[in-house]
């Protein structure tokens, strides 16, 4: 009996020590890592301050956050690639006033909590400005903490209104209400249909935001909404009822303001019931051609709002498409383009605001906030792209149509 007690006490002691040593060595190494890291940044920082602008200086630390895994991985991947391409170009051309950009991209799996964790990781790394996040819900979460830190953030594709509710946040893409409004205008002004049905995801801010603005603008347009049907995240496999109602209402066009994953099911089920209206989506539809195993035939004549068209004849766009294909294989989508422009916007704001690589994130943010409304960039998503203090970009929307499994611009 006594023996057993002694043994168990010994065991407990052994395990505790193991635990403690585990902890100790872990925190020790990370401590030393952080120390040496911050040390080197400080060193190079003072270097660059001394010979201000020499190519020996420190680097601008720009962070990126987006889903590289998970249901929205197509977007996060594209943003990562687009941003890295822009960073590479800038660095090869000598950086910003001779100072290179150091870009660090973290995965958030399209999950708000993981996005905030990624943000904290980047902050520890020494991030001075953030390109991100890619999807709306995580972006809203990150904007809350970045506002408290006064960290400059530019989301390439966070469309929810709340993404840029604070003055430190800007975006490259259109907001949800803008997309709804522009879609309704486009459908009405081009006479695409007289009877329109809408299917939207009532459990998602992005989808509901677009739908509400669309429905409001539809009253001013020359078409009628014959069916407005919702679905929720818990029941997003069967769309037969929503499609049946659209069909019964005689809809000539079905507006689908949600992501491509569900849209691929909607298209398949509509084909199954011989319902062939025009399908019209928003930027979340981009990526449908990249779904593994998806029958691209189903997407023929699908139209969606997109600020970027890879088939455009524009020289800058052609160069971007070619370089992207060479680096990553495949045609870039609008997310890659938004990110590419985002990095160039950050560069322009750094130049305009006179930001140097040794400035604290909060000072960087103040300088860049003021600079954002002054800059104008000729990017791949728009020419003469400018920003308002509210964080919204001003640019013209475009509509893309899928023909024979490829993008085509609609004039």
């Amino acid at each position, binding site marked *: 009996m006594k023996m057993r007690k002694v043994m168990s006490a010994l065991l407990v002691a052994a395990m505790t020590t193991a635990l403690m040593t585990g902890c100790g060595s872990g925190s020790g190494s990370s401590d030393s890592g952080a120390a040496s890291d911050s040390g080197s940044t400080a060193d190079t920082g003072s270097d660059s301050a001394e010979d201000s602008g020499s190519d020996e200086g420190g680097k601008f630390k720009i962070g990126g956050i987006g889903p590289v*895994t998970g249901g929205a*991985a*197509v977007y996060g991947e594209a943003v990562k690639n687009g941003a890295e391409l822009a960073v590479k170009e800038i660095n090869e051309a000598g950086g910003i006033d001779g100072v290179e950009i150091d870009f660090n991209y973290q995965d958030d799996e399209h999950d708000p909590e993981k996005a905030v964790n990624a943000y904290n990781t980047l902050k520890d790394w020494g991030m001075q400005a953030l390109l991100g996040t890619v999807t709306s819900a995580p972006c809203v979460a990150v904007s809350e903490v970045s506002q408290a830190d006064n960290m400059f953030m530019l989301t390439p594709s966070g469309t929810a209104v709340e993404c840029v509710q604070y003055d430190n946040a800007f975006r490259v893409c259109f907001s949800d209400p803008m997309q709804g409004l522009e879609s309704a205008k486009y459908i009405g002004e081009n006479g695409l249909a007289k009877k329109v049905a809408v299917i939207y995801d009532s459990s998602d801010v992005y989808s509901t935001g677009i739908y509400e603005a669309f429905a409001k603008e539809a009253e001013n347009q020359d078409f009628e909404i014959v069916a407005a049907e919702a679905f929720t995240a818990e*029941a997003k496999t*069967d769309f037969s*009822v929503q499609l*049946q109602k659209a069909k019964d209402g005689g809809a000539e066009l079905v507006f689908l303001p949600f992501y491509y994953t569900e849209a691929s099911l909607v298209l*398949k089920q509509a084909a199954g019931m011989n319902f062939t209206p025009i399908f019209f989506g928003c930027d979340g539809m981009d990526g449908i051609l990249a779904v593994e*195993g998806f029958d691209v035939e189903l997407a023929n004549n699908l139209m969606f709002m997109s600020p970027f068209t890879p088939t455009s004849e524009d020289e800058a766009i052609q160069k971007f498409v070619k370089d992207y294909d060479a680096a990553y294989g495949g045609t870039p989508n609008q997310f890659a383009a938004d990110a590419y422009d985002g990095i160039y916007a950050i560069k322009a704001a750094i130049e305009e605001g006179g930001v140097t690589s040794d400035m604290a994130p909060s000072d960087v943010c103040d300088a860049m906030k003021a600079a954002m409304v002054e800059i104008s960039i000729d990017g791949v998503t728009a020419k003469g792209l400018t920003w308002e203090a509210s964080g919204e970009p001003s640019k013209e929307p475009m509509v893309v149509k899928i023909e024979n499994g490829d993008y085509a611009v609609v004039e």
Partner: protein
Amino acid sequence: MSFISYLVNGISLGSVYAIIALGYTMVYGIAKMLNFAHGDVIMVGAYVVMTAIASGGLPPAAAVLLAVVFCTILGVVIESVAYRPLLNAASSLAVLITAIGVSYLLQNVALLVFGANTKSFSSVVPVPALVLAGGSLTISGETIVTIVSCIVIMAGLTLFIKKTKAGQAMLAVSEDKGAAQLMGINVNGTIALTFAIGSALAAVAGVLLCSAYPSLNPYTGAMPGIKAFVAAVFGGIGSIPGALIGGILLGVIEIFGKAYISSQMADAIVFGVLIIVLIVKPAGILGKNIQEKV
């Protein structure tokens, strides 16, 4: 006309729930445990078929067979590694929690192996759609095959349990494990066989689920698994015909709720009906109300 077409849609959604519920109810009926990993075995089955066709170049029928074999083995392994050591545990909660753990384990392994991207599953059902009433009513081939398989599986299981020795052993185990063991029945073997059959059904269900709704990611099995569990409770858990009836009813109620009440409220309506049914008939529609003998 639209009423009939809603009804057909309801039956086709319900038949998918029913085929998943059959596996749930079978395992619960015999082993008296809720196998919450059932939905994820379905997902594994669908991935096996997809990989076998895309990478292995197997014909669909062989791929389905491979998935059935794979899932059967998986089911037996899960049972012997995760559930059997706990079967005599003091609390039945232990097995339930383990089942939830296995469910997450399968999801995360699939996440590692296949990645998180949603893949489009091409239907392996060769039956063409049935077009009625001049094109205004279409019944997809997947629906027809699902309903037929449901009925065949239900009849097969009922026959198996009633007519074979192994089936009789299952009945005995479900009624009283201890007494069955005293009568010389191999209880562990019988429960393993139950899991084997349940997981083979899961593979079939996975193929049919993904053929009807061709989108596959590591979480594909989770929600249908929960809905099918509801269907099994609805029909009377442990009852094989009850799973079929519960599944179909659940699908029809869901679609009618969406169509005639509100497309946003569909799930609230489904679960509302479930609560009412359970208040009126606590054992479910076809469930046996067994009185506990003291």
